[in-house]
């Protein structure tokens, strides 16, 4: 993947001011939208996977528009691993916590014993907690998939 036999006029375009400025303005809004989609999964169209993909896409956009190193600077590999694992822990942990509290696996109304909101409200909130976990995991996986595949595993130079 690293063989660069190209002629000078075929090499990729260097930094472009328009793209950089535009992307720099767009990325916070994309991330906000991704968080919105995650948070509304239990109430309207949306959810963990969808919002996670949008959030991950924001980091991929950063890697494409600027540089792989820039993307890694904002979302380091270590944070990536931690976020992926914590996403799964939140999701499975909620399920096991519900079971430990006396209900069935992923039966959110059993969490009423910890924070009293009412069993019906908890069934709605519980979905949100699980979606949050899924969203975190999917974000980090989308970003790390792109980094790994575009750099051939070395994480130094992307597309």
């Amino acid at each position, binding site marked *: *993947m690293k063989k660069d036999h190209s002629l000078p006029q075929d090499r990729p375009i260097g930094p472009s001011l328009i793209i950089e400025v535009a992307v720099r303005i767009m990325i916070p809004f994309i991330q906000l939208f991704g968080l919105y989609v995650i948070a509304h999964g239990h109430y309207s169209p949306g*959810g963990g*996977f969808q919002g996670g993909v949008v959030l991950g896409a924001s980091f991929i956009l950063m890697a494409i528009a600027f540089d792989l190193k820039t993307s890694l600077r904002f979302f380091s590999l270590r944070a990536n691993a931690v976020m992926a694992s914590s996403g799964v822990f939140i999701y499975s942990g909620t399920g096991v916590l519900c079971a430990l509290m006396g209900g069935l696996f992923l039966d959110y109304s059993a969490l009423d014993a910890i924070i009293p909101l009412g069993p019906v409200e908890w069934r709605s909130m519980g979905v949100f907690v699980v979606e949050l976990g899924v969203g975190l995991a999917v974000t980090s996986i989308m970003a790390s998939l792109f980094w*790994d595949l575009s750099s051939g595993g070395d994480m130094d130079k992307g597309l």
Partner: protein
Amino acid sequence: MEAILSEIIAKYNYWIYVVLMMVGFYAMIGKNNLVKKLLGMNIFQTAIILMFISSGVKKGGLIPVLDKQAALEHGVNSALINNPVPHVLMLTAIVVSVSVTGVALALMQRIYRRYGTLEENEILEKIDR
């Protein structure tokens, strides 16, 4: 002949997806390049996803997003609303498809690095040597 033609026109969406599925299936089996095989697999899975979703559409159906107040007051007439269950199932299928594509792409990178080519016949020659 008339009956067959009217059958095809009545269920044209399913026929389109079946054709798409077969295109993807042929690419998976018949093509030599690994990337084309992977794309064929993606087309095949996407066609199945589309077929599932199109099975839930109704003529003149409303979007399955309810207004909380109106639903609590007037109730919901499910016969008028498009079926949202296939959408949810296919979301999971899309996740599976993305995961398999990710794994396959990572495998192809390793294969390219090791054998220098992505054509299946050349890879098999290099292995046998």
